[in-house]
């Protein structure tokens, strides 16, 4: 009786910043696309629909992550297209943009087409590849940006390798104008960073770890902004993490530079003190939990003042979006000294809930949070995604706003478990993720009542 291609999600709080909707509504889906959104539909009208009761839930457009490491091909023991897209679905993401630092690097149509083809088969959410800026991500010669654009990339990045050569960066920005896709440069002056493995400051000094000053990032962000201004092309700044970067970004936006920027959930919620390994507590002496390698990430976790400024900049829209920089690593990459540890945090499955804490503490509105995960990244991509508009793909995330859960990496869909949030209690959980009208993730969160 129930046609499988007709779905009704009823009674939830629909928040769609792109369509300026925030009200209790029903979302009707037909053939994998949004059919319409209506104020309470009578039961009789739902004949022929499979009904999902979303009473008490938030109904959001599916989340879009502009910065994901799927590790496939090349490091399949850390993550694959299959496991990575399952992790994405668990975190409420229906679109992930895959960084090109695979092996081989995504610097030719062949490698990109391989990822697209396998994602269509093995992936359970949408995978949009990012192409390399330079051949082999070596920073010497531009990758064939036209060929990569034709193959379907959504932007260009050498990811963890900053484009050191200012001329190459200038040419990359200028050349990308033809295809109209953003250049995404990991901004870090390695010389200024000086081999730092965490942010410079009190904690680094106390632990005897080499510290990279904020200015290693800020200086290159400033360079890139001026080069984007010079070439009048699109720049997207990944994982911004310093007060200084926010200042130069704000000033460039005021001048009309065509720039967007992202911030990660961990830079919004964790600070340098997490390296002590006590979930942000500062011990009276360095202890056995210190040097928590799961806190090693690049850019590094910054000071409390930086974290405050990042939250403010996200709220104000100076920083456009949240992107995860989901970076799965194997146990051997993290069960070692801090210096040896591979930088990166496993983020997809904790992303929403960790940032939702900022909503509960009234530092950012729920609408702005959802906008930064849906409409805004969609507009950077320039694709018909991220809205519950008639005819758009039915990519939908259902959120239980009061569910409490304790992060247990052993339950991750990701192949890797490298998160400093293990054992941390979070509020708000993804209960269902729908991709093109089909449920790709579902959970039954325990809800404990307060008091």
């Amino acid at each position, binding site marked *: 009786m129930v046609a499988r291609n007709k779905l009704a999600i009823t009674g939830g709080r629909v928040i769609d910043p792109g369509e300026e909707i925030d009200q209790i509504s029903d979302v009707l889906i037909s053939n994998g696309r949004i059919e319409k959104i209506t104020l309470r539909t009578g039961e009789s009208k739902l004949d022929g629909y499979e009904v999902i009761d979303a009473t008490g839930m938030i109904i959001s457009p599916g989340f879009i992550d502009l910065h994901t490491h799927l590790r496939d091909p090349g490091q399949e023991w850390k993550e694959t297209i299959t496991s990575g897209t399952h992790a994405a679905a668990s975190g409420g993401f229906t679109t992930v943009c895959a960084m090109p630092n695979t092996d081989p690097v995504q610097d030719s149509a062949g490698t990109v087409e391989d990822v697209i083809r396998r994602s269509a088969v093995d992936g359970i959410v949408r995978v949009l590849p990012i192409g390399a800026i330079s051949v082999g991500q070596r920073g010497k010669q531009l990758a064939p940006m036209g060929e990569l654009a034709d193959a379907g990339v959504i932007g260009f990045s050498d990811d963890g390798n900053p484009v050191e050569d200012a001329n190459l960066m200038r040419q990359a920005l200028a050349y990308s104008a033809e295809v109209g896709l953003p250049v995404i440069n990991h901004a870090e002056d390695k010389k200024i960073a000086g081999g730092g493995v965490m942010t410079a400051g009190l904690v680094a000094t106390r632990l*005897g770890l080499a510290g990279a000053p904020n200015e290693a990032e800020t200086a290159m962000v400033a360079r890139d902004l001026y080069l984007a201004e010079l070439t009048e092309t699109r720049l997207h700044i990944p994982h911004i993490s310093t007060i200084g970067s926010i200042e130069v970004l704000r000033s460039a936006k005021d001048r009309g530079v065509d720039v967007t920027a992202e911030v990660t959930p961990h830079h919004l919620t964790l600070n340098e003190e997490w390296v002590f390994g006590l979930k942000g507590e500062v011990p*009276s002496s*360095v202890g*056995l939990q210190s040097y928590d390698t799961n806190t090693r990430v690049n850019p590094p976790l910054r000071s409390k003042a930086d974290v405050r400024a990042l939250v403010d900049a996200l709220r104000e829209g100076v920083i456009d979006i949240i992107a995860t920089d989901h970076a799965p690593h194997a146990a051997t990459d993290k*069960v070692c000294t801090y210096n040896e540890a591979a930088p990166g945090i496993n983020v997809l499955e904790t992303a929403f809930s960790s940032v939702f804490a900022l909503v509960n503490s009234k530092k950012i509105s729920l609408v702005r949070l959802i906008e930064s995960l849906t409409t805004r990244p969609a507009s950077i991509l320039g694709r018909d995604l991220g809205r519950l508009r008639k005819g758009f793909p039915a990519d939908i995330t259902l959120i239980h706003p009061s569910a409490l859960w304790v992060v247990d990496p052993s339950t991750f869909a990701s192949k890797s478990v490298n998160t400093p949030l293990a054992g941390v209690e979070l509020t708000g959980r993804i209960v269902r993720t729908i991709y093109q009208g089909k449920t790709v993730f579902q959970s039954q969160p325990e809800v404990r009542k307060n008091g």
Partner: protein
Amino acid sequence: MAQPSTVSPSHLEQDTIALQPRRHLLDVDDLSASEISNLLDTAEGMLEITARDIRKTPALRGKTIITMFFENSTRTRVSFEQAGKILGADVINITASASSVSKGESLLNTVKTLEAMQIDALVVRHPHSGAPYFISNHIDASVINAGDGTHAHPTQSILDLFTVRAHLGNLSGKRIAIIGDILYSRVARSDIIAFQKMGAEVVVSCPNTLLPDEWELGSILASESGFGGLRLVKSVEEAVDGADVVMPLRIQKERQDAGHLPSLREYSVRWGINSQKMALANDSALLLHPGPMNEGVEISSEVAHGAQSVIEEQVRNGVAVRMAVLYTLCAPGNSVPAFQNGGSSESN
């Protein structure tokens, strides 16, 4: 972190804690002043043993101690070996270059292998800060930090306290001037903490390029730095003026190559400790150096071998202090009361 305001609860807490003997020595920051004092007292007895004609006791007979050095060392490695042997332990020395580490074995697998051989203590030097903490999480044996990266060198700081106490008595109120490569010095970090815990005042001076970014010459560090009260002064003369202890730190040639210094010559002229600069210190002031020295760079030969120098004594005391540490951590049924698990209210 807040100091208990009443005597009795913390006293009870200390008694409870005292039932669990300390297993590792990773830094001095989690030792209380009384724990340090007890270690120093134990080392006095050990020094007497090292002066005997037959330097051998059975205190650690049947115990196996491994020294594992991932960096080169003369005095620290040899003094740990000698300390263990005088106490009757079997001491096995391994170095990274002559072990499976050179075949690519991970640190975790290396220490797991050693653990399987049922060792009692592992003395570790490693170029990465925190490596002994990492190891401690993965083996049951006692771990003793013999220097980790730019983080800590606890036995060096205890032997420095021991050496100074032998000459100047109570360390409280004494002024300690540390000069040089603070940014990269694990000795400086442990010494600053250790001397401060014993009530001494520590003053540091160095070129601005050899100071952590957030430290400012001409200021006194706040407590959240972990080095609260440390005075940072611009000139070496100001640091040495009226000092009871002067300690220049080794300057490595790499600092010049990395652009931290114009030249070793300029460093020597401006920051090197010589007799003119020593003359600014108290008449009874001691000259310490953690070694190895670059004579003519951070220290002139004249003062290095002069009347105020206790550098060779530091080496001799190093054996006694490491005996005290090994004995305290490894002796069967050892009940040295105060060198016990941390959390004491006396720290800082």
